[in-house]
């Protein structure tokens, strides 16, 4: 075994360490200085400390991005290249916006613990994207998940929140068991925990690989909430404090999809299989095709009948998970680029949508769709932002969601351009997204068309308005000028 340069480890883990330190400082500061203060002051004070930690982490990441060669330490346990750095940046940015949303939202008395847990979750996500080792992947996923279970339960005296957390935890624990079991099979077959070492041994399907694959996909299916492993999502989304919901729906999905992509495209490329119409053969592509179809259909149709906006967004995000799987099923470089592009757009859009809900729900009296009646009169700017986010989710041009979807579908159709083997999946995707426009418009109908219950203006703090405005701007920019991000992603993916 090669000797390890500890300096290199420290430099590679710099951003992660900064966040850990930030979490400890936040805990201590809350305990030492803020405990006697009012809740709002505590939320803001500790929130600012958290933000500082995130900004420092971001600066460290920017420095890492400037390194000229990728780092691979301890046999793939720690991998830092520009692609992982970019995704770590995305995670830090999403966390920062979530913190800004939390600063103005009811999160209970344990303010320090809240922010510290959130930072630990962010560290989990960052480790997840900077590793190519099965064991580290599992450990990072557990760190991330445990933090999210705790965050979900933060509405301490609201039974729904407790129930949601318990449900999330039970499902999560079983899914983790499946995942670990599956990973052990893959290790048994290949004798390696490093993703890069696996393809040399794993060159085709056999019952052992099949079992391992199935269990691994069950585990990941839970993490990214696709049908039939989605049952926890609507309850957890509804019960969790809204900023936490936003975090579960965005940050954790970005990290999970990223690592799933790496696992499938790098490690398990030998067990791919096909899902062409009339020409199926076993492998992860086929399993994903089933999950994608079910997610798109069920997610979109069940979302129609939802009356609670967070549940509606939960089903919508199940459907979006289905769209993203289409890119994985394409199993090409273009598909990978499309998945990463879509995941970024999806995360920005959903974070924005949940942010608007978090900003308005308190004063609107609740988070049912009906509580948002006439919001266009009471909070015109946030309503306009919600319009942008909802239309982007529905895939209306010229917004990011449209281009992301187009790119995903184009990648899938191009996979088998002679026989249009994956066109069936694209048709399902396009037709179900036509269905989805219905429920997104219902939300907008309540906001724009219905008369408000009260006429008073709802004031939102400028910091939050500014952050959400930036997200909306990003959604528009990604739709109108997607080329820079596409170029970046396809350059970085060339080395995958």
């Amino acid at each position: 075994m090669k000797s390890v340069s500890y300096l290199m480890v420290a430099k590679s883990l710099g951003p992660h360490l900064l966040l850990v330190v930030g979490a400890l400082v936040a805990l201590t500061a809350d305990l030492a200085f803020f405990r006697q203060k009012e809740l709002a002051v505590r939320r803001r004070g500790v929130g600012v400390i958290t933000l500082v930690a995130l900004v420092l982490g971001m600066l460290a990441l920017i420095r890492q991005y400037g390194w000229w060669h990728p780092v691979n330490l301890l046999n793939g346990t720690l991998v830092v290249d520009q692609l992982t750095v970019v995704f770590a940046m995305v995670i830090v940015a999403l966390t920062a916006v979530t913190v800004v949303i939390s600063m103005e939202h009811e999160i209970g008395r344990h303010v320090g613990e809240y922010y510290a847990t959130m930072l630990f979750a962010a560290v989990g996500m960052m480790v997840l994207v900077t590793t190519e080792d099965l064991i580290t992947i599992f450990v990072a996923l557990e760190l991330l998940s445990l933090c999210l279970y705790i965050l979900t339960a933060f509405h301490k005296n609201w039974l729904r929140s407790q129930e949601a957390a318990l449900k999330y935890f039970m499902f999560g624990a079983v899914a983790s068991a499946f995942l670990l079991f599956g990973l052990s099979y893959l290790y048994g077959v290949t004798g390696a925990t490093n993703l890069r070492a696996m393809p040399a041994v794993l060159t085709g399907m056999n019952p052992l690989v099949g079992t391992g694959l199935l269990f691994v996909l069950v585990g990941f299916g839970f993490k990214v909430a696709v049908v039939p492993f989605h049952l926890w999502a609507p309850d957890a989304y509804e019960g969790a404090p809204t900023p936490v919901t936003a975090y579960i729906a965005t940050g954790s999905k970005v990290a999970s999809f990223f690592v799933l992509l790496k696992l499938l495209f790098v490690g398990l490329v030998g067990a791919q299989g096909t899902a062409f119409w009339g020409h199926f053969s076993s492998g992860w592509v086929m399993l994903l095709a089933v999950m994608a179809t079910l997610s798109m259909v069920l997610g979109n149709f069940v979302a129609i009948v939802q009356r609670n906006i967070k549940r509606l967004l939960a089903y919508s995000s199940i459907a979006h998970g289905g769209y993203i799987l289409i890119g994985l099923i394409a199993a090409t470089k273009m598909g990978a680029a499309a998945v990463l592009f879509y995941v970024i757009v999806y995360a920005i859009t959903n974070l924005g949508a949940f942010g608007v809900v978090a900003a308005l729900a308190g004063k609107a009296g609740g988070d049912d769709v009906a509580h948002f009646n006439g919001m266009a009169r009471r909070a015109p700017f946030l309503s306009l932002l919600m319009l942008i986010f909802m239309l982007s989710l529905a895939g209306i041009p010229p917004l990011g969601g449209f281009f992301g979807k187009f790119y995903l579908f184009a990648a899938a159709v191009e996979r088998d351009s002679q026989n249009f083997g994956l066109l069936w999946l694209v048709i399902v995707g396009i037709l179900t997204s036509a269905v989805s426009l219905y429920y997104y418009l219902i939300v907008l109908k309540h906001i724009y068309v219905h008369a408000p219950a009260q006429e008073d203006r709802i004031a939102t703090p400028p910091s939050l308005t500014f952050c959400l405005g930036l997200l909306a701007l990003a959604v528009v920019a990604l739709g109108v000028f997607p080329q820079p991000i596409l170029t970046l992603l396809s350059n970085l993916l060339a080395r995958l």
Partner: protein
Amino acid sequence: MHVDWTIYVTFIGAGLVMLLPREAKTLVRWVALLTGLVGLAIALRSYFSYNDCVDSLIRKTGSGFWEIKNIAWIPALGARYHLAVDGINFPLIVLNGFVCVTGILFSWNIENRTKEFFAFFLTLIAGVYGVFMAMDLFLLFVFYELAIIPKYFIIAIWGSTRKEYGAMKLVLYSFVGSALVFIGVLAVYVAAGGRTFDILELAKHPVSANLQHWMFPLIFAGFAVLAGMWPFHTWAPTGHVAAPTAASMLLAGVVMKLGSYGCLRAAMLVFPEGLSYWRWCIAGLAVIGIIYGAAVALVQKDFKFIIGYSSVSHMGFVLLGLATLNVIGMSGAVLQMFSHGIVASLLFAVAGRMVYDRTHTRQLDELGGLAKIIPFACVTFVIAGAASMGLPGFSGFVAEIQILAGAFEMNPWLAVGAAVSIPITVAYILNANNKVFMEKDEAGHGHTETAHAHPLPPITVPEKVAGVILMALLVIIGLYPSIMLNMIQKNVALFVGGLR
């Protein structure tokens, strides 16, 4: 200032309107009107300069296209920002300009959320301008969907009669239509090698015939939904009835033309093989639509429903003309798009603004004797109705006679079938005219007069100005069609020549 500035000016206008304070309603109206006028002026100026140079352009380049912009937009996909105009889309661009200006004039009385209304309205107009100019399938699709969403809000917020239902139905129909288009566009893009969405490039190197056979109907049907082709027309009457005046003018006048234009440009130009395979089917459905729309219009009790179904019937003429694939029939179809755009706008303006906004009813039985009270509305209706029937001297005649001639050349029975609708059209127009404007009881009072204690407000200046503009257009095109037909015919001849 080239004609692409119509798009930018209208978007800027929409943005400006959004920034104005909520209370400054008059200012909002004037800004919107000014935006519309500037757009129209740019469109008209370019129209006439194109008209002057169309012959030399064709001689020099062999195609009638006037390139405006062609720059790379998303190189990763090969999507380009490509705008071009020719004799087929120019009349429609001008039409959009006229409907925009007159639509704003007919919406002068909107007091509820004025600012938002005009912002949505101008966004829709800008999107439509974009569709008519886009020569890249991806860009065309982007503009096309951009035009769908404002319609929902305009109808759902400012509409009447079952507005939320009508709005949702219309938007979902359009969106399902565009989903079909989306599938077709993706398929042809990949089949052509995944490098370009450019319509002219794709037309130059068409994909193989058996691919065309299934891709053509996807794109054609997707656009035909919006053109109101039978049996996908049911959104049109409910949508039109629910919409506020300016929106029904825009829907019937312009948005339905987006559909037929898309059929022509995106489906027929790119898939010549698919076109010749499916043309009989299209012609058959068109004739059914023509007769069906007219017959249903005949038995309607609601003033707006009559016009809504009449639109379905007249759009059938457009589709029939397109399916003929000969110069005379297709030129007629393009002219009919323009002509019907004006006629439908006028009819909806009469039914929605002049009559409904004053009497608050559209039921034929509850109206009557309006000719005496608002004579201007009656005159407008008669002139628009005459153009709708295809009376010589108005634009409708020039257009429909050509379509019938073209259809006759394709198959005489098609022409006979379509011609059956003409007497029916005469019947429902005269019936509506009689019920709404003439009919009086024994005492010599119309229903409306007896029902309203207060005298109805007179026709306002904006209404008169807008009405006169549109009526003048009908007559000008009717008496001097070559002002438009010249460029249409030359470009259609190139198109038809390209098919052989």
